[in-house]
């Protein structure tokens, strides 16, 4: 399946990636992604029938610990990096109209 990156797909990618692209940038991105996906297509030449996907290299399991609080009150330190803050909280633009 060779996927053709059309304008609609590109629009959807920008929504998912939370990026705004100019028309010229969109054209360039479309072209580059198409080239990359055409190349990635090569993977279909590899027979993977009956193969389980490998996402973790070593047998992994949930790591549990006692539910004990180890962190301290870091509010000021945490807010120190915030672009905007108010009353000891992160400030964001109005979210509901």
């Amino acid at each position, binding site marked *: *399946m060779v*996927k053709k990156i059309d304008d609609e*797909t590109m629009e*959807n*990618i*920008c929504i*998912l*990636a*939370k*990026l*705004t*692209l100019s028309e010229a940038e969109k054209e360039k*991105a479309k072209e*580059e*992604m198409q*080239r*990359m*996906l055409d*190349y*990635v*297509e*090569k*993977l*279909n*030449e*590899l027979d*993977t029938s009956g*193969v*389980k*996907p*490998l*996402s*973790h*290299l*070593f047998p*992994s399991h949930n*790591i549990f*610990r006692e539910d004990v609080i180890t962190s301290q009150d*870091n509010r000021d*330190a*945490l807010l*120190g*990096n*915030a*672009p*905007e803050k108010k009353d000891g909280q*992160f400030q*964001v*633009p*109005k*979210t509901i109209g």
Partner: protein
Amino acid sequence: MGLETLTALELAEKIRQGQVSVLDGVKAVFEQIERKEGTIHAYLDLYKEEAFERAAQVEKGMAEGKYSGPLCGVPIAVKDNICIQGKRTTCGSKILENFVPWYQAEVIERLEKAGMVIIGKTNMDEFAMGSTTETSAFGVTRNPRNTDHVPGGSSGGSCAAVAASEAYLALGSDTGGSIRQPSAFCGVTGIKPTYGTVSRYGLVAYASSLDQIGPVGKDTADCAALLEVISGYDPKDSTSLQREDLCFSQALGGGIEGMRFAVPKEYLTEGLSPEVRSAFMVVLEELVQMGAIVEFISLKTTEFMIPAYYVIASAEASSNLERFDGVKYGFRAREYDGLHDMYKKTRTEGFGEEVKRRIMLGSFVLSSGYYDAYYLKALKARAVMKQEFDRAFEKYDVILAPAAPYTAPRLGESLKDPLAMYLGDIYTVAVNLLGLPAVCLPCGKDKAGLPIGLQMIGDCFMEKKILRAAHAYEKRREAFIRFGSEKKQVVFPEIAKGDAKV
């Protein structure tokens, strides 16, 4: 030539013997930085005053017995994607230009316990995405061996700093070759450890299933000593492994007689430059003369490595970099219309081109309707690759590979064609996809005087084997850093002319 030309272990020995002070070593690198940094630009930030204070503290601590160990008092540089409490950590990105972490990466805690002196943060490709250190938002780094060329990437600043004697040691991170390829380009030594050996706590994530922090140094012994310092279980990283065989320095000094080395035929195809190829072939001959067994094998999954890697790495990156939204830390766009527009404008203005490219590719391969065809397919390919490498390691101790198909490109040549740049990772990405350890060390130079790197790849947990082999080979080779030129004439040996069995 001053103190800065010593290896880290030589400096530490002189400090222990009382021949020089910790401050002398720190002063020597800062004097070298003064001389070189204007041209090289390996560092993004330097901590001169703190380093001088720390030197006095370490000196005192050593006298009181608080600090001991082989790297006590040694100055070290840290890649700028590793968090140091209270120090700007930018990842080479505008979006983190003013980010000051309030917590310490586990590796930094370990450097401090070992009595080391952190001297600064090194330049890197933005979020470690790139092969040249040219995608940094804060300017390029030049290759100290030839300043018209790139140092490689993404740990280009760390490798350039060590190569220019602007640091005795450095920490880098390796997601697809980001320690090994710049080590090769700069003529230094670097190790990518087995996944889970070094804690990733405090390393800004690029692709979490591939990322590992590792050492960069002037030789194998220095790297082994630093790896020992930074390795070990950390409950703060859920992928951290409980290993008991972490005395890597003990592996050095043994011979390699009877050791079995495999050379994948697929690594010697037309994409490999003739000069890198002939230097690599000389290595094979040397190893045979040292009593090793060197055989050609076939790794049929080689051609699938780059496509699988870029799908998986981009997918993980798109997810990891979702957090940069202009709310909790970092840059926020000045003008926007509402919350969602703030996210989009912040990310659009804050990220560079290469990072956006990978976020978009990753978002696509994870999106509904394409997840199975691309992401899941790549994970299945990864499983097939693992089977193939497992079979190879049943028979062989080490897989040999060049570090890159060519030596360091000229500045400004690589970013024009992203796919062509990605193809340069052909020899390095398998190690990350499969969690394997690998060491990269210099094995020659091309006609332009640019270093050529050799990779020794081991099975998971087999750091000691590859370090023993690398150290033995290094002893045989002329000390590259020290003498700066290869005495041995690089010739095109018989073995390179056909599919010969050695």
